[in-house]
């Protein structure tokens, strides 16, 4: 008995579509780090040092590091409801005081996962 002939139907995306998806996923995700500091804050310079030391091992293009001096821009602190300094904000979460590098890495990882999830949806 001859083998019945079926039309082949593929549920996999075409080669071109697959390539586009891979390209999209590999696009570098930029993680934004904000440090809120003030001129009067004695802990803030150390917090800034810890952040710079933590991210220097990574590709510089992965991060966008912004320092907000609340003494000069109190409106920015008010907008985000941040009044204890130093405060580091990464991807919608924040930590107050001089952060430990491990905690910063966790926050960075969390922000990266959230961004990727958001991009996939």
């Amino acid at each position, binding site marked *: 008995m001859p083998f019945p002939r079926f039309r082949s139907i593929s549920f996999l995306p075409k080669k071109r579509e697959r390539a586009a998806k891979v390209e999209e996923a590999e696009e570098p995700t930029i993680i934004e780090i904000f440090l*809120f500091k*003030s001129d*009067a*804050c*004695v*802990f803030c310079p*150390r917090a800034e040092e810890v952040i710079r030391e933590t991210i220097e091992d990574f590709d510089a293009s992965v991060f966008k590091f912004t320092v907000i001096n*609340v*003494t000069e821009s*109190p*409106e920015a*602190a*008010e*907008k*985000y*409801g*941040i*009044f*204890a*300094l*130093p*405060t580091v*904000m990464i991807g*919608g*979460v*924040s*930590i*107050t*005081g*001089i*952060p*430990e590098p491990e*905690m910063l890495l966790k*926050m960075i990882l969390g922000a990266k996962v959230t961004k990727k999830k958001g991009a996939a949806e």
Partner: protein
Amino acid sequence: MSEFTIERVKTGIPGLDELIEGGFPRGDTILIAGKAGTGKSILAIQFLFKGATLYNESGVLVTLEEPPHLIRRNMLRFGMDLAQLERAGRLAIVDLSPSKEVTPVTVGEYPSFDLSGLEAIILNHVKRLNAKRVVIDTLSIMAYKFRSRDILREEFFKLCASISRAGCTLLLTSEIPAQDTGLGVFDIEAFLASGVIVLYNEKISDTSRSRSIEVLKLRGSKHSSRIHSMRITDEGIRVWPGEITPGH
């Protein structure tokens, strides 16, 4: 006795100024303490409203608990249109309430911080409006927001001093927990302030409660040492200086 007189800031709250030699000493920090529902926020906001409308003194309200739109709505009930004062540049409402949409989620805290951010936010509005009155409502929320109580205590001393140096009279509200006998959650509230006013809403029978007010301390003033009747009327808080509350 010296003839030196302390400059007074009239509260504008009917009956209260009579208990405190005409008003709060200018530039002082006054604590308004009381259990939930005793009228602390109303009294503090009324102080700002009357300052702006009767005494030409602008004010800054820092809300750490209740969102501004609810404060505006609730004060309208007493005929106090805060939005109008804001538009006229006589009042600033600083929203630091947890309901603020863009506030990041706090994942932790290290005991190496200060409140210089709060100071910068408040002084920015004080300078902008040339404000003479500041209210922080409520101090107690800070105890739930931060774990490092020792730091908070020290930082509050610095903050109060800084607002006072800017020429403002500061009112802090403090919620006394239900079964507590102190003046708030920090145990140092009374030391922060040079004046303490306590509000009560005591049950006097199975079917009724009685509101009252007590001036517990007011440095540099000869104040009443009795507990006086107080009511929340359609026009806000009113104190009856000649009426001693039946609950005490």
